[in-house]
């Protein structure tokens, strides 16, 4: 026993030491970062963010220098706080708050105290900066907007928050990151790469030379310039047309899928989200929960498409062979499917064949076609799933895959959806239960972006390219390959001509006859979508949405678009007019139907939007 006590203690000590070393060196990895902070000083050199141009080479967004006052809390020495606050134009309380916050975040990492000074503020401050130890001015570049439109497309940049830093260690406190639109989507291209210089520090925190002979230092790489597919003039015009209305316009070039215009209304001036007023303005936009200016209705709004959907019903009917072009369907003010009341229709001549059915937007005709399409299969489940398959091939019912960071899937119901809804097999359901789908009401939901996509596919007679906003990356001269890939629909090309003829006749003698644009062969389809809102738990019907899809010219189409005006009543009233104006603006560059333009530019729906919030009973569709 006496012989072994010391031996025993020695070995125990060895094990304890090994364990402690393992804990320090392997298990607890916080020391690595501590060591870095301790011994290595890092300086960043921020490159210029890439510019944004429109499709015609017009500069949309460039940069302006901005100056952030940064602090490293542990280096702060006693100083004349009042003078400093005077220079920065902040109150001593604000200053103390910010300093405390910075200290809590990290005593040794820089945090911004006052971000985004202007050039003049910088000039007066810079010569006195040496008096305030621990503070320094970091030059960055901010966005300089050359236009006041396209805020929803361009997005904005903002300071990174701690959550972002945690996810992506590239970013440091006080740095900027694209937070919406193109700025977010192409952040990696636009921001470039910041340059890094590392210095070895000694324990007095003074630099004793480059770290590892500058082995890890890098030069900043300028961000890439990006050319967008947006047509600046068309976008501007679209936003002007949508003033005092809510909804959106989205225009594509069908042959490429390039987004020509993406108007979401209401919109805001992108310059509001730059500089020191940014957070104030952002808060204002953010808390407008009624008009929702930050909500991109074109990409995020899911609406029942209404009558434009009939074009799809017709195409699927033809492809499935359940109807031909000659057969006429009679309509006596509605379609009786056995429900409590028939699916109503408006007044038009009867009976109608396919082309007339489209031109006059006859509900009975399309209810008949839809029902035959579903009932062609032994069970309604199989019928619905087959119908959905056709719709999916138009990019409906799922994310389209365009290059903007927000979106919705929309909804194309399948058999599971109805089985769940009707608790199949406990209860059975049949085609008439889904009859509203035939005319784009019912369960079907689409974003305006999805509507324009199927319109473009019709215009192309059976294929589409994924809509995209990127036209070129300057210097790289390519775009992501998925935007050069052709998607072919499940409908044979020959079935498109009659449907397109029907859409053309919408203008010739149909529901949009009075908004013709002279000299342009437009094909379009009106839509009037019923909708409801819940206010304080009470469901109420609002004035119908005004919907319109169109493309032009009929042969070799140059533009396809979808227009959506919330509570604009019937399709041709607002949306149809706007579509005509946009097409003329894009194809001719000038407007011949000044009457239509005046009607839209001066018209306002604000009164309509205020109705549900008055708290009093109101009349819709007037």
């Amino acid at each position, binding site marked *: 026993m006496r012989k072994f006590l010391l031996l025993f203690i020695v070995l125990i000590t060895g094990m304890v*030491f090994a364990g402690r070393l393992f804990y320090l*060196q*392997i298990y607890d990895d916080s020391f690595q970062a501590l*060591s870095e902070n*301790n011994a290595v000083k890092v300086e960043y050199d921020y490159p210029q963010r890439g510019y944004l141009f429109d499709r015609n080479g017009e500069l949309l967004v460039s940069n302006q220098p901005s100056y952030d006052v940064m602090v490293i809390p542990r280096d702060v020495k006693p100083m004349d706080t009042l003078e400093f606050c005077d220079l920065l134009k902040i109150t001593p309380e604000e200053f103390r708050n910010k300093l405390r916050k910075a200290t809590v975040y990290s005593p040794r990492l820089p945090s911004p105290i006052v971000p985004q000074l202007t050039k003049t503020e910088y000039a007066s401050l810079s010569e006195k900066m040496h008096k305030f130890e621990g503070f320094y001015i970091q030059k960055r570049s901010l966005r300089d907007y050359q236009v006041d439109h396209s805020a929803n497309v361009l997005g904005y940049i903002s300071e990174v928050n701690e959550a972002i830093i945690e996810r992506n260690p590239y970013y440091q406190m006080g740095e900027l990151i694209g937070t919406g639109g193109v700025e977010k989507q192409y952040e990696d291209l636009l921001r470039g790469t910041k340059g890094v210089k590392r210095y070895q520090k000694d*324990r007095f925190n003074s630099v004793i030379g480059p770290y590892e002979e500058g082995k890890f230092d890098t030069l900043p790489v300028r961000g890439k310039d990006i050319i967008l597919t947006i047509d600046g003039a068309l976008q501007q015009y679209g936003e002007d047309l949508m003033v005092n209305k809510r909804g959106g316009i989205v225009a594509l070039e069908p042959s490429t899928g390039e987004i020509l215009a993406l108007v979401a209304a209401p919109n805001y001036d992108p310059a509001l989200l730059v500089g020191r007023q940014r957070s104030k303005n952002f808060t204002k936009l953010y808390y407008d929960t009624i008009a929702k200016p930050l909500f991109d209705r074109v990409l995020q709004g899911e609406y029942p498409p209404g009558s434009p959907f009939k074009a799809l019903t017709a195409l699927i009917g033809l492809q499935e062979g359940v109807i031909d072009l000659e057969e006429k369907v009679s309509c006596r003010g509605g379609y009786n499917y056995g429900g409590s009341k028939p699916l109503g229709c408006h007044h038009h001549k009867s009976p109608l064949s396919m082309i007339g059915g489209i031109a006059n937007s006859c509900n009975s005709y399309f209810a008949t076609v839809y029902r035959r399409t579903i009932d062609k299969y032994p069970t309604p489940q199989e019928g619905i799933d087959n119908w959905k398959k056709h719709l999916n091939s138009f990019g409906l019912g799922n994310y389209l895959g365009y290059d903007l960071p927000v979106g919705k899937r929309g909804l194309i119901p399948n058999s599971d959806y109805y089985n769940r809804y009707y608790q199949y097999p406990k209860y059975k359901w049949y085609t008439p239960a889904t009859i509203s789908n035939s005319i784009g009401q019912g369960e079907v939901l689409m974003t305006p972006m999805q509507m324009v996509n199927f319109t473009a596919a019709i215009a192309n007679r059976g294929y589409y390219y994924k809509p995209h906003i990127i036209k070129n990356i300057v210097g790289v001269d390519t775009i992501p390959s998925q935007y050069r890939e052709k998607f072919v629909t499940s409908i044979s090309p020959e079935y498109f001509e009659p449907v397109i003829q029907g859409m053309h006749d919408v203008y010739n003698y149909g529901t949009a006859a009075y908004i013709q644009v002279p000299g342009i062969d437009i094909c379009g389809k009106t839509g009037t979508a019923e909708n409801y809102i819940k206010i304080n738990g009470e469901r109420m019907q609002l004035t119908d949405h005004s919907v319109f899809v169109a493309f032009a010219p009929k042969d070799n189409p140059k533009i396809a678009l979808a227009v959506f005006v919330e509570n604009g009543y019937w399709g041709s009233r607002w949306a149809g007019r706007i579509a005509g104006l946009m097409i003329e603006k894009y194809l001719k560059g000038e407007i011949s139907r000044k009457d239509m333009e005046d009607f839209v530019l001066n018209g306002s729906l604000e009164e309509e939007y205020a109705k549900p919030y008055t708290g009093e009973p109101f009349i819709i569709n007037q």
Partner: protein
Amino acid sequence: MNSQTRYVKFDWMTILLYVALVFIGWINIYSASLSDNAVSFIDFDQIYFKQLLWIALSVVIIAFVLAIDSKFYERFSSIIYLVSLGSLLGLFVFGKEISGATSWYSLGGVGLQPSEFAKAATALALAKYISDIQTNMKTFKNQLGAFMIIAIPALLIIPQPDPGSALVYSAFVFTMYREGMHFVYLLLGFFAAALFIGTLALGVPYVVGIVLAVAAFIYWRNRKKKPNRFKYAIIILSCIAFSFSVNYIFNNVFEQRHRDRFNIVLGKEIDAKGIGYNTNQSEIAIGSGGWTGKGWTQGTQTKGNFVPEQHTDYIFSTVGEEWGFIGSLVVVILFLALIVRILVLAERQKSKFSRVYGYSVASILFLHFFVNIGMVIGLLPTIGIPLPFFSYGGSSLWGFTILLFIFVRLDGSNYYYT
């Protein structure tokens, strides 16, 4: 030399371990003391070069130590001990004050620290005393005698002040225990340490409470045996008195820096910038090493001189940072191997003198290893004693070299003695 030398056989494993430790130690001193203003490798102002000189001189010392007849050490141990005590006493008159401690003789610009050599002298004297045929370590008288041999140099070192070096002499309790001292003394020591730490960590009232509770519990357990109440009272009172005196000494005798060191390790104060700086920086340096470290001379903490005294007491933090877990483990294992090897050799000695001396060598090396690395990795309070063979310093290196090689010499003659 005479015919005896033919039977001498040195333990090569011990020597190899020694060489490995000295070599690795120098490698790390080089890295820790590397500065940009060195003109060339040969530069007498550079710490690493001076250490290289001390190492070279060690070789000479080793030659002398091994050349001397092993019987010399036994015969002259008392004289060596007295000379050593004299050198410690002389410090009070001729000592040179360096950073607050009068622990040095200055000989032509080279500082010599007699306390480093006194360890070997004390070990020799203790071995001589214990191995004496008339000494019986089971008797109180002889225990007291052995204790005096250890305590005198320690008491001379404390007022330098160098309490860390004095603490090393507590290592001899292992030797005394090995040679027959009752286990109770070790327990008593352990118990005193527990009371000491308890008093500092919790305060006197808690310790008194705990002592009373434990005593009451033991008394209750043994109530059938009619325990001696007087004995209980004495033990309880002495515990309480000890706790009070620890409190008094801590607050009135200790200097603030000593108090701070204890408080940091006991977790009562956390101040990474001030008094806890050493330990904190040392942990950061070691912790940032990872599995394999940052590479020789690549340690950012080492380069930035963040760890104070990194080439002396904190040399192990350089190992941790630049050689990582693997390197640190290798060093720990080398030390363990050396200590264990010495213990094994000591048990093998035919002469009691050699055995006692060997045991003392192992104990002293172990205590240094335990206290120094324990401090560097943040397990023990800051107690400034060097890591044997590793830390920079001529006196320290020579002191340990002499200590170790006397044993190598004694062991080498093991086969000669019968």
